[in-house]
Each structure stands twice: as structure tokens, then as C-alpha cells.
């Protein structure tokens, strides 16, 4: 039995401790916003926050997440209020197919926490998610917009 805290809720899961956190989140806990893209920490589709830091959950054993604070895309908004990154994503109409975007948004939210006003170079260094639809131009615009919302807030 492993005790997980996800989006502020506790889940006790009966699962092989080597199972990647991604699959526990998707299959045992039933939160499917976090996506599978590669399984080898290459694409970032599975990005969640563990104690506030972006982590590629496909390559993170569930046992290592026990007792830590896990946030998924479903837990990013505060109640009805979207996170500023989600809001910027809406305003800039970022997603195409949308499949990579949960991971992209989680990676960006973690970046903004660390660097509230990231430069283009900061973005280039921190955001290494794959988007096969190629939304990067809008992603960059929306990151800057969210950062400005940050500054105002």
C-alpha cells in the first residue's frame, strides 16, 4: 500500500512500487489529464509537480512519490480560477491537438514559480517538451503573457 497526496487528496494505492507514477496517476487514481508520450523522459507529456518542481512522471517510480505533494494538471487551478498559465493558454489559443499541453503547462507553471519573469533564454533552457503539432510560437507568447500577469498580480 502506497499513500499518495495528489491535488490535496490522499489516495492509498495497491500497486507494484516500481510502477511509474504516471501510470498510477492515470490508471489507479483515474486522473487522465497527465499524458503518456514516450515513457523514457524524452517528451514531457507526463509532467507533474512533486513538491512544486516539474517531474516527468513516466520515469519516476511511484514509491519515490510517497509522502510528497503531487500536483497534476487537474489540480493546477484554484477551484474555479484557472492558473495564470492556463488563462494565458486560453487567451493565446495555444493548443492544437492539445495532447502535449498538460505537460507543457505544468512545465511552464514550475518555471514561472522559479523565475517569474523568464527571458527567452530561460524558456529555451527550461521548456524542453515535445509538441508534434508545433505550438511553440504561441507557447512562447503565452509564457510571456502569463509572466506579465504575474508581475501585475
Amino acid at each position, binding site marked *: 500500500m502506497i499513500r499518495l497526496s495528489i491535488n490535496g487528496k490522499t489516495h492509498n494505492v495497491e500497486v*507494484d512500487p516500481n*510502477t*511509474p507514477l504516471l*501510470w498510477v496517476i*492515470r*490508471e*489507479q487514481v*483515474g*486522473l*487522465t*489529464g*497527465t*499524458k*503518456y*508520450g*514516450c*515513457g*523514457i523522459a*524524452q*517528451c514531457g*507529456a507526463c509532467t507533474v509537480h512533486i513538491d512544486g518542481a516539474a517531474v516527468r512522471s513516466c520515469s519516476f517510480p511511484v514509491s519515490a512519490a510517497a509522502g510528497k505533494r503531487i500536483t*497534476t*494538471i*487537474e489540480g*493546477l*487551478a484554484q477551484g474555479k480560477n*484557472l492558473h495564470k498559465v*492556463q488563462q494565458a*493558454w*486560453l487567451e493565446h*489559443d*495555444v*493548443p*492544437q*491537438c*492539445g*495532447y*502535449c*499541453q*498538460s505537460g507543457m*503547462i505544468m512545465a511552464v507553471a514550475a518555471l514561472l514559480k522559479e523565475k517569474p519573469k523568464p527571458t527567452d533564454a530561460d*524558456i*529555451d*533552457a527550461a*521548456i*524542453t*517538451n*515535445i*509538441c*508534434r*503539432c*508545433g*505550438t*511553440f*510560437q*504561441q*507557447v*512562447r507568447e503565452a509564457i510571456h503573457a502569463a509572466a506579465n500577469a504575474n508581475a501585475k498580480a
Partner: protein
Amino acid sequence: MQMNRRTFIIGSAAVGGGLALGLRLPFGPDVARAQDGSPEVGVWVAIAPDDTVNIRVVRSEMGQGTITGLAQLVAEELECDWSRVRIEYPTPGESVKRKRAWGDFSTGGSRGIRESHEYVRKGGAAARVMLVQAAANQWKVPASECTAANSVITHAPSKRRTTYGKVAEAAARLPVPQDVALKDPKTWKLAGKPIKRLDTRDKVNGRMVYGIDLNMPGMLNAAIKACPVFGGTVKSYDAAQVSGMQGVRKVVQVGDDAVAVVADTWWQAKSALDKLPVVWDEGPNAKVSSATIAEVLKAGLDADQAFIGNQNGNAKEALGGAAKKVEAVYAYPFQNHACMEPMNITARYTPDKCEVWGPTQNGEGAFAAVLAASGLPAEKVDVYKTMLGGGFGRRGAYPNDYVTQAVLIAKQMPGTPIKLLWSREEDMLHGRYHPVMQCRLTGGLDANGNLSALHMRLSGQSILAAVRPQVVQEQKGRDPLSFQGVFESGEHAFTYDVPNLLIDHAMRNTHVPPGFWRGVNINQNAVFMECFMDELAEAAGQDALEFRRKLLGKSPRALGVLNAVAEKIGWGKPAPKGVYRGLAHLKAFNSYVAGAAEISVTDGNKVKIHRIVGATDPGYAVNPAQIERQVAGSFVYGLSALFFQECTVKDGHIEQTNFHEYNSMRIAQMPKVETVLLPTGGTVWGGIGEPTICVAAPAVLNAYYRATGKRIRSVPLKNHGIELV
């Protein structure tokens, strides 16, 4: 997560429909209804009493904004309140019952909008006429005195008004008018505008349901492995080795070439599959390699027999008499689509009903696959679409693909829904690959440096021979699609006017299954033709743009887009220090497209693309904001292919298994993309999702030559030690 109907605002019919099995709310039996019970006003629109407008879309949404664009076109004519619009996907099963009332489901070839705009607009217009008539009947006034706007019908003389929702039941009972006039696109208020997509909110909060996310009561998960060597089969496997593993329910053979493990969770299924001993009969292709394939193609460059795709004058003779001859050989590799969401589908089979749920670009193609694999008649089969996590041509209809596999597994466990998900590795090893091609170009210049003759010899794989053999048969063996962008006529016609021209194709098929990869054959044809144009211009001592212009006298729209990118990139004006330019153009999918790039190269091999301008003339632009995104996205897809992507063959199988060996562009490498939209109208609508992809690679290659003096003639650039930074 149990499926929640709320999550299906888009595609609610797709999945909700399947689960609600025959649900029809008691609103009266006599008219067809949408899933929410609202009456159908013509087949394209159903309106609820609360004024919710269900617009029917049968094309798939895989990121291109197709459903938003189609809804804009319907809503434009319908004059409805856009904020109350939602999308409903009719199913192929319903379509069969209703004599294909919604037309073609297939979403590929950039035809989602361009080939359905007319009938969906008419559907919107007809519904408006019916709603207005219903209100007029109720008020006993002539319909001509009533107006409709924003879902409200007004009779000005008597100052009465009502809403679409209030008269929809009555309107649904009126005959559907056949000859409704459509608006002049110049008067559009909603179509043609850069409005936001309908499907974004659920894509930022994790609620959008893709095929991979489906869950149903009693559902089990399957992981699959097909023989890595195409054409090989399963010899034996030892189920006993894994059947005791946690969660494993069953190990099954799938067709003659694959084995699947079915378990409670997919991770359990995959873990067991990884441990399952399987012996393959690799069949006749176990020795094929990229090198042996390249040899076969190379021989095709000199073959006597070839299918002609475009011809005028006498190219061979004119080449013999040319003042100067230029020759070059180019090559393009196999590439995988690598959709972000790996292939998957969920199937449930009983002897009475077989249904599948999931991502497909072609609902009817999936329907046909379910029919064949289940052996059930059409009335016992249906397909419910979800959102697609990318398509790019991979999720079209191919023989013996993931839909067939899922049904074959489900048949072995009747009554249990089975979600089949491919691992990324399976997805990489069993793609429907961009065809492999070589090309020899020979050009002849006269004494004045004019292009007097051109021979383009293609040698390589035909997609249609594998996927639509009947088309190739009708063409007496020729694959017309292999000439995309250089063909004699039609939507992919060659734009240059060359007095003596021969473009022919020595078809050399391989055992690697080919597929329609975003842009399809324009990717290689644009690289071949547009890089060679630069080679010819240089041999003629002329500017690359001027040289092209002289050949485009008969193609003003091609000239239009080429001039547009040239002007925007600053062609002919000095570039910033260390920055070099290149350009390219093509006509494809009935759109004229051009690209121009500015790059710099450091250490001889590190390429930075600073800007890339894309111009497109699709005739009409339904949503300029989404077109901009398609241009930028196409460039990411095309440039990823140019720099990084090749699927090589060793011992009969594909070698690259995941993104570490098959890279894709990241944000740091993203150039600034500037889009010029030049819709010139006319009667033919062009596509958007694919055409511009093909100009990125030759524009960058031409710039690379100017920067380094090195002409690169094969893709990808990583094979030449060139990096994208």
C-alpha cells in the same frame, strides 16, 4: 476516471452516444434528434429549447482546428449565437442508416474544410430558412418579413421576436429546402475571422478525453507486439511465463503477426508483454536493410520503364542540345509520423454488436475495418470518435492496423471492452512511413541561361500501390500522387512553364508499409525541385528569385506567393551580417504556398533559423488565426523532419524506437514564423493543414548553401553532421 458526459462537449455524441446506447429522450418520435434530444433542423444542425446549437461535424479534429472552421461556416449561414455552439459527431453507423447524409468522414489530404464547405454552408442556410419559416407560420406572416440574427428571429412590422430554440421543434417538421442561396464570402461576419477555437478549455485543464483516456465499466487493457520485421509472423509464444503476473488476464495472438497481453491496467499488460517469450518467423524480408533498399532505388534512376506524370516538348532531345547541362541526385528517407498520442482504440465485441471508441482520421475507414474484423453486418457495428492526439495522416485507414487488432482481441473476450494502446516503441516500429525516394534531376540551359529542358526522374515507393491499389490499377500502374506538386494538372499541378519537360517515376516498392505523412509526397518533391531550381539559377548565373519568376509567367498565383515571401524576407536587400536567405514555392492541395528563410551557420554545421516567412493562397481563409498556427506548426513538423528524422531499416525492421533516436524540434530551436495570407478567391478552395510544410526544408537548404557553399541533397541533416540550434 469514469467517463463523464460533461467532458464530451466536443465529441459528446462520439463517446456519450456509444455508452448511452440508443438513448432517445421523449420529445416526440417523429423527427431525428441529437444526443441531447434536441430536434434536427436539417442534418447539420440540431437546436435545443435553451438555444444550444449542436452543429454536426463528421470530419475529425486532430489539432488543425477543422471542427471550429466547419462550425464557423455553418454558423455563418445559420445566423446563430456562436457562444451557444457545440459540436456533435454523428457516427459512421448512423451515416450508413441515413444514406451518408453527412458525406465523407475522411480527414486527410487537407480536405476537411475545402471539400465540405459548400454542403455544410448549405446545411446552415437551409436550417435558417426552416427556422424563420417556422416562426413565420406561428405568427401567420410571410417569412420574407422576418429576419434572423444571433439565434433570434424578428418580425419587425409587428415587433415580435422569438428564438431558434423555441421554434426548432416546428422547424424540424418542415421540408429541408434544397436550393438555398449562400452568402458572398465578402459579407461574412464569423467565417473568415480569426476567432478562437471551440475546443481549447478542456485542453488546458486536463479534461479533454483522447482515446488513451477512455474508461468503461469492466474494461481491460491490452499491450501489443507485432513481428518487428514487416511481413513476419508469430511462430510461438510461451503464455505460461507471464500469465501469473499481477493483473494479467489473458495472452492472445492477434492475426498471424502479433501477440497481446490483456491485463487490469496497461502498465501491467506492458510489463508482462516485455517478459513474454515470443518466437517470430521473420519471413522473406529479414535481410532487407536501408542499404539494400537504396541500391534498388538507385537502379530505378536509370531504368527504362517509368510512369510519366508530366510531359511536354521533348526533354531528352532538348537536354542533348543544351548549351549547359546540370545534374544532381537527391534522396529522402522513411519517416514516422510520431503523433504525440500513440496509436490506440477501445473495442467491445459481442456476437450482436461490435463497437469501437477512439481516435481516427476516418470514421468510415475505421467502420470498414470493424466490419471486416468482426464479421458482423453494418447494422451491428459502430465507431465513436474521440479527440485525436495528433494525426498527420497516421490515423487514416490502413490495412491491418490498430482498429483491426483491437477488434481481433475483443473477439477473444466477448463482452469485455478492451483498450488497446501501443507503446511508443510499437508506434515507432509499426508506422505507415513517409515513402522513401531518390530523384535525379537533369536540367538544360540555353545560351542565354534560360531553362530549356528539365527531366525529373523519381525512383521509389508508391503509397497508393500499398494503400489504394485500385487507384493505381485504374491508372495502369501509375501512382498519380507520387507527382504531388509536379503533376500535369489538378490540385497538385506543377507551376513552372518549361518548354521541354519530363517528370517520371520508376516505382520501387519496399516491404516497409508506406502512409500519408503530413504533406505526403510534396515533402520530397519540393526539396528535389526547389533546391534544384537554385542549382539551375546558379549555373545560369542568375538570381534564384528572378530565375523562378521567368518560369512562372503562366502561374500568377504562384508568382503572388513567391513575391510575397521575397518582399517580406527582404530578398535583394542586404541581410544582417552572417545571415543568409533561401526561398521555395509549390502548389499543392489547391493552395499556392511559398517560404523564405533567414539562417546563420556557425562552426560550419550549427544552423540557427532566425526567421521563416510562409505565404499561402488557399483561395479562401475561414479562420486566419488558425491558418497562422497551421503554418507555424507545419514548419515545426517539416523542419524536425529535415534536421532529425529518418527511420532506417536493419534486418528487415525499423531501428529507431523512441524520441531519443527520432528527435523532434523543441522551443529553443523554433524560428520566428511570419505568415502572409493571400486568399485570392475563385471557385476552388485550397487546403491549409499540409501545403506549407513542404517549403520550409528547401528554403532552409537553399539558405544553407548560400551560407556555406555546400549543397546538401539528402535528408535528414543530422546525417551530414548538421545541427539545429
